[in-house]
């Protein structure tokens, strides 16, 4: 048995080493004056800016963005699952909705977002609308495809045991769909952060996207980078959280 630490180091050690190396090179290049600091601030000044603005960032803007992300994700989850399951059970629904789903993803987000601002104003709902538009598609598709793929043989077996449609759905199709479903969730939650940020860029009074836009207007590159750092950290943490839930639920799935 390998120790936990050794296992962990084997998985992430190389990645961390490269990160440390990259940051050192970055720091050195900027400090030597090869790149002006208003174009690319040094990691240390990004950190400094993060510390200076920490109250504003952590107490106002981060919670605002997180709220949009979580609300958007939960609403996408509920809606996406309902639509995915509905399309699984009804061919007519599938035929009607699928083209619309694809169309909804071909519309450029940046172009449609001002419309949401027009409809919902600067309230949180305009940001949530953009978030949902980016995040629900992977959930619908992964739910629908997960329920569809495989299970033909299991279905026949359960039919010969006298199972009805609902029993087959519950005992076989849901468990078989879970791996694909979780892949969709992980993608979706990362998109949620993207969606919320875009929404904030186009019109907001708080949030990390709003903050980074204001700071870029002031040419404060270090503050922009600080908020980007927080945004990407948020995405990573949410991604890992879903991965954790998945691991707990699917402990005994096929390997």
């Amino acid at each position, binding site marked *: 048995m390998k120790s936990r630490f050794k296992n962990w180091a084997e998985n992430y050690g190389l990645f961390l080493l490269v990160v440390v190396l990259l940051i050192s090179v970055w720091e050195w290049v900027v400090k030597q004056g090869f790149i002006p600091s208003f174009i690319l601030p040094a990691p240390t000044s990004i950190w400094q800016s993060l510390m200076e603005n920490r109250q504003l960032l952590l107490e106002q803007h981060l919670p605002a963005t997180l709220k949009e992300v979580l609300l958007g994700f939960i609403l996408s989850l509920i809606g996406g699952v309902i639509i995915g399951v509905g399309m699984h059970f009804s061919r007519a629904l599938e035929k009607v909705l699928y083209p619309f789903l694809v169309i909804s993803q071909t519309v450029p987000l940046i172009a449609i977002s001002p419309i949401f601002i027009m409809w919902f104003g600067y309230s949180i709902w305009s940001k949530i609308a953009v978030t949902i538009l980016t995040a629900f598609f992977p959930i619908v598709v992964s739910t629908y495809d997960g329920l569809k793929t495989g299970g033909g043989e299991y279905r026949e077996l359960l039919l*010969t*045991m*006298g*199972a009805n449609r609902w029993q087959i759905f519950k*005992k*076989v199709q849901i468990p078989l769909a879970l791996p694909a479903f979780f892949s969709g969730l992980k993608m979706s939650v990362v998109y949620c952060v993207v969606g919320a940020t875009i929404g904030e860029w186009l019109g907001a009074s708080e949030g990390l996207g709003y903050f980074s836009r204001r700071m870029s207007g002031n040419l404060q590159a270090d503050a922009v980078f600080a908020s980007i750092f927080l945004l990407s950290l948020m995405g990573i943490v949410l991604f890992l959280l879903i991965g954790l839930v998945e691991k707990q639920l699917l402990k005994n*799935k096929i390997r």
Partner: protein
Amino acid sequence: MNVLPGEFVSVIGASGSGKSTLFKLIAGLLEPDKGQICINGQQFGKRLGKVGYMPQKDLLLPWRTVVDNVMLPIELSKEKKQEKMSEISEGLARFGLAGYENAYPHELSGGMKQRVAFLRTIMTGRKLLLLDEPFGALDSMTKHNMHSWLLELWVDLQKTVLFITHDLEEAILLSDRIYLLLDKGAVKELKVELPRPRRSELIYQTEFIAMRKELELLIHNEK
């Protein structure tokens, strides 16, 4: 074709001769274009859930333990789980699976998976079992062991079995009668007059070898 209660009947035929289709018809997954299928002398409107069907692959649910897999048909028929628990643990012991109750399918060997699937089929409580090449994917050593095991078990199993196989030796060793599915829908019947209880060593006896030769000739002459 017919199968009498308590009989072990094998179906042999080349790939594509429709053996698995025949089973799906009997199980009720498909409906015949022509002809009739009667179970216990009655022609059921719906045969699904009336016979035990074991497909070629074990099709154990990988996220369920051995016990929970065997429990599946009981869950579906909404019987009380507790009442069946003693029957299941007895079955597991008899099938050489004692101590593996809480193991997951990926932790079992091929032969054990097949036994779990077989026990699950028996737990459906049906009298007629359709076994579609249950040992087809096993290596010859494991297969041999499974034959000995099944022959021992057969005496007090009190089931009727219809069995698909490619393996002539297996068919003769296990069956009371053999149906040969030939080209163009022709069917030939062959009785196996070997006394029961049988042992797997039977395959080395002259009667057995003669029987096998006869069967091979029958198949060969058709082509």
